[in-house]
């Protein structure tokens, strides 16, 4: 029950889904739709796992008075306060939406924008043209960066055209091959999982 049961469930649900999609029969159509629906129900009802984990990790830090426990306590108070506010007041509650729009959104956007500065330091490391590969990466990045802003066309009309060409041809070729390779990898992994060969995601060796 502990090992074979989950693997059997995986194989049965997987093969049933495949058969119901491949076999073009009106009798099999509802099977795929039902499994799709069940999948959404399971996913929809396990989102509290994240909240429980947050509570465990932060609650433990507060109880043990670990370093910075005060921040963990703030997190827990705000988390449960906000959940209660939303569940009691409903989705159209003014305070619930004000907090989202005026507190979460500015922090979210600023965190997103701080990545500009981290990317800047990453670029410094990546773009030091130590070898031919790094030099190619540097040239492509600089051309695309300058070509996509007004500075590029101010320097030369050829720069935006070069940027477009890099994005439309060599980049498309590279990304297309990456996507095809990822597709093959995904299919192989899915086959291994559905045949019970790949079990590591369930904690098995």
């Amino acid at each position: 029950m502990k090992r074979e049961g989950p693997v059997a469930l995986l194989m049965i649900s997987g093969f049933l889904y495949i058969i119901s999609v491949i076999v073009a029969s009106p009798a099999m159509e509802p099977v795929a739709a039902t499994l799709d629906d069940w999948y959404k129900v399971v996913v929809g009802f396990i989102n509290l796992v994240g909240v429980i984990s947050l509570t465990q990790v932060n609650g433990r830090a507060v109880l043990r008075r670990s370093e910075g426990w005060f921040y963990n306590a703030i997190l827990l108070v705000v988390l449960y306060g906000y959940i209660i506010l939303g569940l009691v007041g409903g989705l159209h509650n003014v305070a619930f939406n004000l907090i989202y729009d005026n507190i979460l959104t500015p922090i979210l956007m600023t965190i997103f924008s701080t990545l500009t500065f981290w990317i800047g330091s990453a670029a410094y490391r990546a773009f030091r043209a130590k070898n031919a590969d790094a030099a190619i990466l540097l040239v492509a990045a600089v051309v695309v960066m300058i070509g996509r802003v007004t500075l590029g066309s101010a320097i030369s009309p050829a720069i935006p055209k070069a940027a477009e060409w890099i994005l439309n041809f060599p980049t498309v070729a590279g990304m297309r091959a990456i996507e095809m390779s990822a597709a093959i990898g995904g299919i192989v992994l899915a086959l291994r999982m559905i045949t019970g060969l790949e079990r590591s995601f369930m904690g098995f060796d």
Partner: protein
Amino acid sequence: MSNDIWVWIGAFLTLGTYSILFKDNPVYRVLEALFVAILAGHSVVINWYNFQKPTLTGRLGEGKEWTLIIPLFLAALMYFRYSRKYAWLARYPMAFLMGIGAAYVLTKNLKPMFLAQARATMLPLWVPGNIGATINNWIVVIGVASVLTYFFFTIRKQGPVNAFSRVGRIYLMIAFGALFADTVLGRVSVTLVRFQFLLQDWLGLGM
């Protein structure tokens, strides 16, 4: 300067979040805690109203779709992961999700992610009267083939295969450089919006 209290709060939150660029500090850590808490709380509330409540009260309660008890039972098993003795029960919902996920990949992903991409690469290698299109088509076809060769690990790459795979590496460097540049530009746009908020909406400069 703005008279709106929410603009002042937004400015404080923006500057407080930017303070991490200098060094870790208590203001940033409080904002970090707020961010995680509100984001997680919001997802719980949205999920309850948009999904869990309609499923429990509508479909199961009024619609009497009794078969929903099966996925609900599976979802409930996930919470056994917090029990040392019965943590293995949480493998069942995970196995179900992985089974359907793997089957979905096998039945639905092959066409758009592999066949459609392969078909799009089948370009004419001679376009009459258009040398530019001919060269570009060659560049795409050689690029896809060489990058695929680069990712081919079944045999040891030697001689011409190795040389062709080196061409693929050059394509990858160009693609990564271009994508990196695109990402940088996207982030810079967001940064400009934040600075615009601080300078115009908050301080009232350049109005």
